């Protein structure tokens, strides 16, 4: 009876919560207070797919859901992005009958890295995708080895891992397991032989801490690595990006599937690859997967195009406190051969908690904006002075840089006759402050 009432309570809270605009974690939170082990009592579907990692969780889960639904599967997933146990509880209780049976073919869960061990105490995933581990929100998460240890506690023996073979730290989750499914990229045309970022988290082997060597770097410490001391090296992959043409926007998966990509960034192609992998494991025909994901435009609003007077622009949502996310946006802007202006806004470091720490600015490859095609760079927001200091340590010509604290004033200044496209690089916490002052296309 308690199960029945808890499910009913959660469904009711979700229904009324939606009406008054409440988030998706509150109903689950109350349900868990009422019945802490409710998740143990639910009859789950055949496939329970979990996705975690520093970057790309939300996009990957969205694409997996898209492919599966397009191919006739009923998928329950946390599309609002509430990815801790409360949000997942809301998702599950709202996806089941009042007797506690999940009504979908597949339960798809985006999980926060640090709290996965609580979420997966009762819900044991059949498959667990780990995308990558980067320096990410260090003010909250500690560091990637700390997060690694937290994820490790959440992994059950019976779960099949789906791992990014190109990430040396993520790969060590596969130790002692013989059924890991590896995904990764072959040597790509955009690769470098030498490391070219401001910090390198791939210098030492995550297993034995001896120096590693790389035969190729895709970006940051993602690439083909080998430790001569302990033998830790990139695994062969079952799902592989063979080539990527980011100018044209096309990738090849498993030497057979040409897929056009709407968002031409390297880490987007990893998200596509991992969603391809999951869909294949669930049993979707690979031709159908390729068709479903071809030219797919993410709905999660990370890339927003806008008009400002006579000018066109693109806002690239990047994560503050996450240098790799910024690096990807910087690469997109600097690859635009038509010439562009770049605006970087750091007004509030986080929307979820307070911090004024800007150490992460020093981990971003801002020097890669030193490029003929980038004409002007505007540094905006409360932390514009910190940005100005950071840029003074690059080789970028001072005359290209403008420093404007006030976002509204920056928008006014951008509303001019220049022909260059505008790229705005900023975070969830700050993007509305800009978008509310322009016309979103």
């Amino acid at each position, binding site marked *: 009876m308690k199960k029945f009432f808890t499910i009913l309570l959660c469904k009711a809270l979700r229904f009324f919560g939606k009406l008054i605009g409440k988030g998706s974690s509150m109903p689950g939170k109350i349900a868990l207070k009422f019945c802490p082990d409710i998740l143990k009592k639910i009859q789950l579907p055949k496939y329970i797919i979990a996705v975690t990692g520093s970057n790309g969780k939300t996009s990957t889960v969205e694409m997996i859901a898209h492919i599966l639904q397009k191919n006739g599967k009923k998928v329950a997933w946390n599309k609002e992005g509430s990815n801790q146990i409360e949000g997942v509880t809301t998702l599950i209780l709202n996806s089941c009958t009042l007797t506690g049976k999940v009504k979908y073919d597949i339960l798809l869960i985006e999980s926060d890295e640090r709290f996965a061990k609580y979420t997966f105490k009762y819900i044991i995933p059949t498959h667990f995708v780990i995308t990558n581990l980067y320096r990410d929100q260090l003010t909250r998460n500690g560091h990637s080895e700390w997060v690694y240890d937290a994820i490790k506690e959440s992994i059950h023996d019976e779960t099949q891992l789906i791992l990014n073979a190109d990430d040396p730290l993520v790969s060590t989750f596969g130790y002692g397991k013989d059924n890991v499914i590896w995904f990764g990229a072959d040597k790509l045309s955009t690769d470098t032989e030498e490391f070219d970022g401001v910090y390198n988290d791939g210098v*030492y082997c995550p297993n034995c801490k001896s120096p590693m060597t790389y035969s190729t770097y895709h970006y940051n410490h993602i690439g083909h690595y080998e430790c001569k001391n302990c033998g830790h090296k990139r695994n062969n992959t079952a799902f592989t990006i063979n080539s990527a043409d980011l100018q044209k926007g096309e990738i090849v998966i498993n030497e057979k599937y040409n897929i056009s990509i709407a968002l031409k960034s390297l880490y987007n192609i990893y998200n596509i690859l991992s969603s391809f992998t999951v869909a294949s494991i669930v049993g979707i025909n690979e031709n159908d997967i390729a068709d479903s994901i071809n030219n797919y435009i993410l709905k999660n609003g990370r890339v927003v195009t806008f008009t400002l007077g006579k000018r066109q622009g693109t806002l690239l949502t990047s994560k503050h406190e996450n240098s790799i996310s910024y690096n990807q946006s910087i690469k997109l802007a600097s690859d635009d051969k038509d010439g562009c202006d770049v605006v970087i806004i750091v007004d509030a470091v986080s929307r979820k908690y307070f911090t004024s720490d800007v150490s992460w600015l020093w981990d971003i490859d801002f020097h890669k904006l030193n490029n003929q095609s980038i004409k002007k760079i505007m540094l905006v927001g409360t932390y514009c002075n910190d940005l100005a200091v950071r840029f003074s340590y690059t080789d970028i010509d001072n005359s290209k840089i403008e420093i404007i604290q006030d976002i509204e004033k920056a928008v006014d200044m951008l509303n001019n006759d220049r022909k260059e496209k505008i790229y705005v690089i900023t975070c969830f916490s700050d993007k509305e402050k800009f978008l509310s002052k322009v016309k979103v296309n």
Partner: protein
Amino acid sequence: MKILHLYYDLMNLYGEYGNISAITRILEKSNQEYELDKLTINDNIDFSAYDFIYIGSGTERNQKIALNDFYKYSEEIKNYISSNKLILMTGNSFEMLGKAITDCNNKMYMGLGVFDFVTIEQNKKRYTSDAIFTTEIQENPLVGFINKCSEINGIELPLFDVKMGIGNNNNDNKEGLHLANLFATHLTGPILIKNPYFLEFIAKRLSENTNNFEVCTDYLKYEYLAYEITLRELNNRFENK
């Protein structure tokens, strides 16, 4: 002038290289020639050749790898500090100078034994906080961020008073370690970038220790503005809590 960035590729949690960038820039602006060495484990180091040494913060695992190498230099480091030379240590790097570090699995690692304090790590809770630290060595407080999982007991010569943030241990409102020209704090990241007054202080000590060069601070415009804004934001946060 010789500068050493030690364990540069191992103890680099979060933009720590910015501290070296700040020091070399102020030397350049002050017309001082310098040599910068970036060294790491398995290098042979003659500490007495240097005028300034910096070690940054690392993951708990990386710190143990650095300690395994650093341990053998115990006497050299004692001599370096007692000869009044400058050394800046940020984050968990200065924990290596104590008697021992005990990790979350209760394994004990011997420290250099320059000081008698002990460090104990745990793996349940990350202690993170924005920080405002005041100090007798300069008028302006330091701003920054703490990111650690350890507590240190037995420090007799702290560097800071904690206004906002976390002390050497959870019952302590004193932070860091200070002896002669050793300046150590658990603040992480590029603290010399974020604290231009502290950069000036360090550069002046470096000047006194070498050829009494005149320290140039004219170029520090955005650094001061950024510092004032961060201090304001932190004070607002502190007062409204």
